[in-house]
C-alpha cells in the first residue's frame, strides 16, 4: 500500500510541477497510457484472487482517478497560462488605422435631382427627359419665341454648324422643349417634371455654359394659378426643410406663359449669412406661369378646353442655396477635394417618407 500511496503522491507531485502541456501529456502517458505505470499495475490484477483483486483494483482505481484529476487540474492551469501567453503575444497596436475602404460620392447635382424626384413624385409628377440637341421649333417657335424676338436674343444660344440646308440645330437653352415633346406625344392630363442639362453661351463667376434646370408642367382642364402657388409652396417648404417658408409671386414675363410670375422665397441676411426662412429679404428662385394658349395650340391641345401651369428653376441654384456651395464653376471641374467634401454618400436615396 505504502508503495501505492507513494506512487500516487509522486505522480501527483510530478503532475503539479509539469512545466507545460507537452510534459504533462508525457506524464499522462507514462502514468495512464497503454504502457503506463498504473495501467501496467492494473494488468497485474488478473493474477490476484478475486478478493484481493477487488481491493487492489479499487485502490488502484482511486489512484488513477486522483492522478487523472490532478492532470486535468494541471492541464486547466497550463492551458489558461498558455492562453494568457498567447493573448499577450498576439496583442497589436489597435490604434493603427483600419484598412481603407473609401466609399465614393454622389455629385450634388445628382443628389438634388433625386430630391426633386422624391418631392414631386409624391405630388404625382413623373419624370420626362428629352434631347440636348434641339431644333428651332421645339426650343423656340413652339414656345412662342419667334425669330428676332428679344427673348430669343437674350438667351445666348449655342448653335451647331449649319446643315446642308442652312438650318442650325441648337443646344437647348432650357428644358422647356420637353414640354413641347411631351404635349405632342401625350394627351392631357399631363403632370411631369423635366430635370436636365441646358446650355447658354455665357461663362463667368455666376454663369456656366452648361447648367441644369428642372421644368414642371401640368396640363388638364382645371389647374389654375392657385394650384401653381400651392405646388411651389409645398415644394419649396419640403425642399428647403422650412415649414413656414414664405413665398412671394411677382408678375413677370416669359413668352411661353401667361400670366407669368417670378417667385421669391423669404430669407434673412443678418450678419452676412444667408438664411432661408421668414425674414426681411426675398430671394428670387424660379419663374413660372400659366401655359400660354399659343403654346398649347402649337401642340395640338385646345386652349379653350385645357389649361395648366409650367415652372422652371436652376438645379445648381437651389442646390447652392440649400447646401451653401459657394462657387458655381467648380461644380463641373471634377475636383476630388470638392467632390469628397460636398458630395453625398450613396447610402440612401432621398425620400420624403424617410425624411431624407
Amino acid at each position, binding site marked *: 500500500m505504502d508503495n501505492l500511496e507513494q506512487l500516487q503522491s509522486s505522480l501527483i507531485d510530478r503532475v503539479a510541477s509539469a512545466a507545460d502541456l507537452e510534459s504533462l501529456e508525457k506524464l499522462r502517458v507514462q502514468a495512464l497510457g497503454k504502457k503506463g505505470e498504473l495501467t501496467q499495475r492494473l494488468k497485474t490484477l488478473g493474477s490476484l484472487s478475486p478478493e484481493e483483486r477487488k481491493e487492489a483494483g479499487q485502490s488502484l482505481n482511486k489512484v488513477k482517478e486522483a492522478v487523472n484529476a490532478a492532470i486535468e487540474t494541471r492541464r486547466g492551469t497550463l492551458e489558461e497560462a498558455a492562453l494568457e501567453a498567447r493573448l499577450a503575444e498576439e496583442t497589436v497596436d489597435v490604434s493603427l*488605422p483600419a484598412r481603407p475602404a473609401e466609399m465614393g*460620392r454622389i455629385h450634388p447635382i445628382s443628389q438634388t435631382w433625386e430630391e426633386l424626384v422624391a418631392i414631386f413624385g409624391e405630388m404625382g409628377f413623373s*419624370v420626362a427627359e428629352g*434631347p440636348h440637341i434641339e431644333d428651332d421649333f421645339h426650343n423656340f417657335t413652339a414656345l412662342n419665341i419667334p425669330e428676332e424676338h428679344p427673348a430669343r436674343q437674350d438667351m445666348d444660344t449655342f448653335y*451647331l454648324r449649319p446643315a446642308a440646308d442652312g438650318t442650325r440645330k441648337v443646344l437647348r437653352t432650357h428644358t422647356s422643349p420637353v414640354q413641347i415633346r411631351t404635349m405632342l406625344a401625350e394627351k392631357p392630363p399631363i403632370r411631369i417634371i423635366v430635370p436636365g442639362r441646358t446650355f447658354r453661351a455665357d461663362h463667368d463667376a455666376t454663369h456656366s455654359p452648361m447648367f441644369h434646370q428642372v421644368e414642371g408642367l401640368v396640363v388638364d382642364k382645371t389647374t389654375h394659378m392657385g394650384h401653381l*402657388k400651392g405646388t411651389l409652396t409645398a415644394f419649396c417648404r419640403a425642399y428647403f426643410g422650412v415649414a413656414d417658408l414664405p413665398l412671394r409671386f411677382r408678375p413677370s414675363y416669359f413668352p411661353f406663359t401667361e400670366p407669368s410670375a417670378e417667385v421669391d422665397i423669404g430669407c434673412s441676411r443678418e450678419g452676412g449669412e444667408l438664411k432661408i426662412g421668414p425674414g426681411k429679404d426675398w430671394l428670387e428662385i424660379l419663374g413660372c406661369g400659366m401655359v400660354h394658349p399659343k403654346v398649347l395650340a402649337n401642340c395640338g391641345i385646345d386652349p379653350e378646353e385645357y389649361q395648366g401651369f409650367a415652372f422652371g428653376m436652376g438645379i445648381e441654384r437651389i442646390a447652392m442655396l440649400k447646401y451653401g456651395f459657394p462657387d458655381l464653376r467648380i461644380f463641373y*471641374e*471634377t475636383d476630388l477635394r470638392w467632390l469628397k467634401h460636398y458630395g453625398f454618400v*450613396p447610402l440612401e*436615396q432621398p425620400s420624403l417618407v424617410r425624411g431624407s
Partner: protein
Amino acid sequence: MKFTLNWLKDHLETEASLREITDSLSMIGLEVEGVEDRAEALKAFTVAQVKEARQHPNADRLRVCIVDTGEQEVQVVCGAPNARSGMKGVFAPVGSYIPGTDMTLKAGKIRGEESNGMLVSEREMGLSDEHEGIIDLPEDAPLGAPFAAVAGLDDPVIEIAITPNRGDCLGVRGIARDLAAAGLGTLKALDSGPVEGSFESPIKWRRDLPADRQGACPYVAGRYFRGVKNGPSPKWLQDRLRAIGLRPISALVDITNYVTFDLNRPLHVFDADKVKGDVVMRFAEEGAEILALDGETYRLDGEMVAIHDDAGPEGIGGVMGGELSGCTEETQNVFLEVALFDPVMVAKTGRKLGIISDARYRFERGLDPQSAVWGVEVAARLVRELCGGETSHVVSAGELPDTQRQVSLRPERVRDLGGIEVPAERQKEILERLGFAVEGSNGALTVTPPSWRPDAEGEACLVEEVMRIHGYDHIPEVDLPRESYLPSAVLTPAQRRVSAARTALAWRGMMEGVTFSFVSEREAALFGGASQAMHLDNPISADLNVMRPTPLANLAVAAARNADRGYGDLALFEVGPQYHDDTPQGQATVAAGLRSGEEARRTWAAAPRPVDVFDAKGDAEAVLRACDAPVDKLQVTRDAAPWYHPGRSGVLRLGPKVLAQFGELHPRVLKALDVRGPAVAFEAFLDAVPLPRAGRQKPSLLELSAFQPVSRDFAFLVDEEVSAEKLLRAARGADKTLISDVSLFDVYQGKGVEPGKKSLAIAVTLQPRDATLTDQQIEVVAQRIVQQVTSATGGTLRG
C-alpha cells in the same frame, strides 16, 4: 431702365414714399434692381460758412478756420488753398464717414491746433476726382442745409428690369401709368398738343420702299427748326441725364435722349445744313458704309433701312444716327426725325452690326405708333424752349399703321385661370386705368388695348393685366388634386438605371463628376472624334468647341487636372450623355469611369497595387449588374475602341449588342492628355441593356440541398492564346445539373510550363441534390470535365 424719383413725379401725382413706390413696382412686374439714394450717402454733409480763416501758427500750408455750421461754431484745421474767410463750403462733423478717404472723422489736434470736423472737396465726398480745393458754394446757399439738396443730388435713382413685353415702360411715363393703375397716385396730363409751325420745312420726308416691304418703315415725321442756339442744356436736364448714367452733350442731343427715356420715343436730329436734298427712308445699298454717331464705320446691307440724303446714308434706321449730318454746338438749323420701324428689321440690323443702342432697344420691343404723331410736338416744344428759333410745320411720309384691335375678356377667366375672384367692375376699372378701353359689363368684356401695348394680344394677357394690378399676393395656395391616392411610379426603368448605375459605382469607391457636354476638338479626336455636325458654330472657347463623343474624354482631362494638384490616385465616374449626331437618337446615356494610379491608398496593412484592366472590367460588370444585365451570359471580345490598349481591353457583348467596353487607356491618349498612368477606364452603354419585361419579376425557386457540396481542383496546360472564358465555359458545360460553380484560381507561366503555354487552374464545385456523391460519381464528372476542356481548348490535364 433708370429714372429718378422726381422724374417719376413729373408724371405721377403721388404722396407715396420711395419705399412704397419701389415695393409697388416689384409687385406689378417692374422688378426693382436697385435704388441709389445719394442723399442718404451724403447725409452728414451740410452747408457751412467759414467765419474766419487764419494762418496755422505751426504749418505754412494749413489754415485754422472757425466754421459756422448753422447750429454752432467749430474750429477746423484745413489744408485747402481756397479756404478763406466768408466763403460757404461743405462741412462734415466729427463722426461722419468720408467716402473719398474711407475714413471716419475723429476730433483731434493737428500740429497743436484743435480740429473738429472737416471742410470737404468733391473727391472726399466720392462725387468726382476734383480735389483742387474744398467745395466753394454760392453765397446764397442756405446755412445748415443738406449739401445733397443744394447740389441737386437728393433725388433717388431707381433702376428696374423691364421684361421684353413691356416696351411701354422704357419711358418714365409708362412706369408712372402702371403705378397710377396700381393705386399709387394719378397720372398727370402730358402736354403733347400741337405746336404751331410758322413756315414750310425746306426738307421733306420721303419713303422709297418696295410694295411688299412698306412695313419696314411705315411712317416718318419731322420738323425743321430755324435759327436755334445749341449750347449746353440746362442744369435740371443735365442732372437727370447724369443720374441715369448718360453724358450730357448739347441741348439738342440731350433733348433726344431725354424724350427717349421720358416718353419711350427715340428721336434723331440732323444738322439741316449738312443734309443734301430731301431725306428718304429706303433699304441700304449692299455694302454702303456709314460713319455712325459712335465714331465707328458700319457696312450696311440690303435688308437694313437707312435714312438717305443725296449724299448717301445718313442714319441707320431705328439703330443709330450718322456722324456727318449730326448736330454740333455750331448747329443753327435742325431737322427732326420721328420714325416708326419694323421691330424685326431693327433687331436684325442691330444684331448684324453689333450695335446696342437705346433706340434699337426700344424699337425692337415695339413703339407706340401714335408716338410718331405726338413725338414731333413734344420735341418741338423742348427745342423751342431750350434752343429758341422758329419751328416749321410738320412734314411726314407714309401712314400710321392701324394697330387697333379688340380682345374679349370673360371676367370668370380671372378666377378660372388665375385662381383669384376679382369682380368684373374691378377688372374693368384696372384695365381702364392702364389705358384700355372697355365695353360691356355683363358677360364678356370687349377690350381695346391702347396703342402703346402691342403685347396685349389675347384674353390671357388681359387676365395677367388684371391680376398683376389687383395683386399676385391675392393668389391662394391650392393643393394640386391627387390623381390617385398613392403616387404611381415616377421614373421609367431607363431612368432608374441611371440612378442604379450611379449608386453602384459610388459604392465601388468612385467619385461622381458632372462635366460639360462639350470638349475641345483635339480631346474629341483622341476618343473617336466629332463629326462636322457635332461642332459648335459659336463655341464659347476653343476648349469647348465640339460635342463630346464620350464622357470618358472629360474624365481623362479631369484626371490629369487632379494629378496636377497632387491627387493622382483616383477613381472617377460620370453617368451622362454622349453625342453622335444631331438627332434625338444620336444622344446616348453612358456610364463611364476612370481609375488611375494605385488601387488603394498606401497603407501598413497591404502592398499597394497599380490599377489594371480587371478593375475596369469589374466596374463595367458592376454597372451592368446594377442595370439588370445578365452579366453571367456576356461574351468578351477583344475589339475595344482605339482609345484603349489593344492588348489589354475588351468588349462585353450580349449577342450582337455591345453593352460595355473596358481596358487600360491607350498610352498615346495618356501622353496626349498628360494623364499619369497607369489608367484604366470603362464605358457602359446603358441604353443598350435590354429592358426587363413588364411586370414584377420573381426570382426562380431556390432549392436547398441537404447534401454537402464537393470541390475538386484541376489544372490544365493550354496554349497561351486560349481564353480563360473558353475553358471556364467548357468546364461549366460538363454537367449542368451537378456543377454549381467553376472558379479560376491560378494562371501560371514560367518554370515547369513550356514557353507558349500557360497553366490554368480551376476549382469545380459539385452540388448533389438527391444523395451524397460516391467516389465513382465524382470520378465520372471529373472525367467529363477533363474531356470537355481538352476538346474545347486543345489543352491537357496537368499531371
